[in-house]
């Protein structure tokens, strides 16, 4: 007995022993060494990605629960459940089981609503997260690959959402699937074949719910999970970006350690996100399929819309004029096919931007300090232009709702979208760039003259001046920490031997773009230390 106690005393605590066991097999100590006290900078916008991550986890948790009750079948049944206005109505098993989840499974409605609300928030958060990364230039080297991963997650999220929206086989989602069939039919040459193969024959057939189901719960989320893990590994590997500030350089990251602060903050944030979504699901109804009725191809309701993340594609299709070309016995359905082609292009426009910018700047260095949007006016202008484009399409996608609630004409809104599609982004770009330059000037003034305090002083000779308070060294540094590029030059067209060098067209384009980015009127030179000294020495008059 006494020997046993003696060995116990020498033994490490239980937790350490478990860790030792795991380390011998998984090497967790080496892993923890670099990650346990990993530093995360504090900024609310750095938590947008976490909202995406957590809502994704919530969607998976609730989704698994829903699969326990949902029947992905299009077999026709007559409903005899507890929702009175549907009793005796013919419907697919998919729709009937969704009614059962909503009315007969205790808590089923809540889980359904959490699942759907979390999905809307998931995609919304991804878009906002992506915009944060865009406007702060966090996509620059070394994070371009992670930008692409994130973009793919957004696209896959949209399609996972769309397939999920279609599963209950209600009148609204069925109308959406019918639209999808029409869009597929418009594809030249293979459209009809694709449609027959997708639906297992003529629309609607008896197969699409089951097929969408495996895509929705297995194929797409599986790919997303993989991308998500890769995305997170890269975030850890690259370490987080940070805004410029005293003590924050391109070579360090300043913030709080993962253990314990971010363990508590990020871990706690998961529960906060889940809690907020649960309360929203308690108080606000989403996709009340019982009010929509089962899908029948000759029934329809006004206000037939997809979930918001597909709204811009809906806008494309609504704003498009009905062009159709009939030639040699074949039909080219441009009215549907053009929007179908523009749809990925709208998304691609923002996705390829980082690569265009890095080509224009020719900058091969790593960037870990974020830009303030104003200090990259062309990029910011492009981003706002893209968002304007997106929002105009969203408005076009909801033109009937806006017509109804703002007492406008549907036709007028459609025309607004048709013109706005081309004009809106241009105007937005110009205005945004102007605003950015204005803000740059303000920063410059602030650095040179100090902060306007709002305190008015009367000088002995009667003049009123506003007291300017010089900025702290930290603030001065922060406002001038950004780098300013020099516009690219074509360079000498004759080399040292006098032989004419041919300048490639792409090179000319690059130089032209670079001048548009960093030329004289496209950025405000930041204040220099000399200017500052000069003004501060002659201080007294403003």
């Amino acid at each position, binding site marked *: 007995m006494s020997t046993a106690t003696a060995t116990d005393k020498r033994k490490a605590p239980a937790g350490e022993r478990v860790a030792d066991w795991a380390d011998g097999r998984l090497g967790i100590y080496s892993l923890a060494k670099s990650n346990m006290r990993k530093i995360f900078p504090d900024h609310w916008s750095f*938590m947008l990605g976490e909202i995406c991550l957590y809502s994704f986890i919530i969607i998976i948790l609730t989704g698994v629960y829903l699969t326990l009750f949902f029947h992905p079948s299009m077999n026709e049944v007559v409903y005899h459940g507890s929702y009175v206005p549907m009793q005796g109505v013919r419907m697919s098993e998919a729709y009937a089981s969704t009614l059962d989840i909503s009315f007969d499974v205790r808590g089923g409605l809540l889980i359904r609503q959490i699942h759907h609300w979390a999905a809307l928030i998931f995609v919304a958060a991804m878009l906002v997260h992506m915009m944060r990364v865009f406007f702060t230039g966090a996509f620059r080297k070394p994070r371009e690959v992670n930008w692409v991963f994130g973009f793919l997650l957004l696209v896959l999220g949209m399609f996972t959402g769309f397939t999920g929206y279609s599963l209950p086989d209600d009148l609204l989602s069925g109308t959406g699937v019918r639209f999808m069939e029409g869009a597929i039919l418009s594809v030249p040459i293979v459209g009809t074949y694709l449609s027959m193969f997708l639906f297992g024959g003529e629309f609607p057939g008896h197969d699409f719910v089951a097929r969408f189901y495996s895509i929705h719960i297995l194929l797409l989320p599986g790919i997303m999970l993989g991308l998500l893990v890769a995305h997170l590994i890269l975030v850890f590997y690259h370490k987080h970006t940070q805004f410029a500030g005293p003590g924050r350089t391109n070579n360090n990251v300043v913030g709080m350690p993962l253990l314990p602060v971010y363990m508590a903050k990020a871990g706690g944030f998961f529960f906060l996100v889940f809690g907020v979504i649960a309360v929203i699901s308690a108080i606000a109804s989403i*996709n009340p399929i019982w009010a*929509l009725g089962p899908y029948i191809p000759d029934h329809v*309701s006004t206000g037939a*819309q997809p979930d918001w993340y597909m709204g811009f594609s809906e806008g494309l299709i609504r704003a498009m004029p009905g062009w159709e070309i009939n030639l040699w016995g074949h039909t080219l359905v441009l009215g549907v096919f053009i929007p179908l082609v523009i749809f990925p292009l709208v998304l691609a426009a923002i996705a390829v931007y980082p690569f265009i910018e890095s080509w224009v700047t020719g900058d091969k260095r790593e960037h870990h300090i974020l830009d303030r949007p104003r200090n990259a006016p062309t990029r910011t202008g492009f981003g706002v232009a893209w968002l304007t484009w997106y929002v105009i399409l969203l408005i076009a996608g909801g033109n009937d709702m806006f017509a109804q609630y703002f007492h406008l004409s549907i036709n007028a809104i459609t025309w607004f979208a048709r013109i706005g599609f081309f004009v809106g982004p241009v105007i937005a770009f110009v205005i945004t760039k102007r605003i950015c330059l204005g803000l740059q000037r303000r920063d410059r003034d602030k650095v040179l003259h100090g902060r306007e305090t709002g305190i008015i002083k009367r000088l002995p000779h009667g003049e009123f001046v506003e007291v300017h308070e010089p900025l702290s060294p930290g603030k001065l540094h922060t406002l001038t920490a950004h780098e300013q590029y020099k516009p690219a030059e074509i360079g000498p067209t004759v080399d040292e031997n006098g032989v004419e060098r041919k300048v490639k067209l792409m090179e000319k384009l690059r130089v032209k773009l670079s001048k548009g980015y960093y030329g004289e009127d496209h950025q405000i030179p930041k204040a220099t230390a000399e200017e500052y000294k000069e003004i501060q020495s002659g201080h007294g008059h403003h």
Partner: protein
Amino acid sequence: MKKLSARRRHPLAAVVVLLLALAATGGLYAAFAPAGKAQADETAQSLAIEEGQKLYAVGCASCHGSGGQGSSDGPSLVGVGSAAVDFQVSTGRMPAQQPGAQVPKKKNIYTQAQIDQLAAYIASLGAGPITPTEKQYDPAGADIARGGELFRNNCAQCHNFTGEGGALTHGKYAPNLEGVSPKHIYEAMLTGPQNMPSFPDSTMPEKEKKDIIAYLQTVNGDKSESPGGLKLGGLGPVSEGLFGWIFGLGTLIAVAVWVAAHTAKAKKS
């Protein structure tokens, strides 16, 4: 005042100014927007004095002609029947206030007796659908589920799944059916007011109309259930998307700001 001026350079000053400007714009809009009610009341007073057949001459003849034959401002009323008159006048649509894409519902300015007199006069111009009796439109005992199917086939395309209304071309619209009495729904189906097509008894018999009314009362009455919570207008994904962005993501971002914010420092140091 001094406090105020000292704070005008505060980082949040711009936000406050923006909010004030928005409030002011909204207030101005509300002040100058056409005040429908006041006008209706005035007309109400002037018209309520008249009675009987004279009502037509005063309230209707200017557009529909002295004998109901119609004019460029209003269609002929010959053969529209008493049901159409009862619907148009008792929902306040007629007499119309001003020309526009569509004549809206407003406060009714006639008593039921006056409406009946008007209806009798119009009915005498030519035979048409007769004002239904309560026995015809009372939805008690009707088949709600069947009504739902009929509604989704015949009505939802304009009025939405649960009768929340919807937009038509060039500013016309199908109105929200919440709170519309069974009698008026019946009359609307029977007569097809304005641009709404009619659903006469020959193609949609009385029983089917009752089923539809019963369904509407279940899903779009003041006692209608919305098990999931706020029904967000019953409009589907557009309002859900807006709610998700504003209250869902909005709340989460507010929470994120709190999580990431630096804790207040002790004042002493």
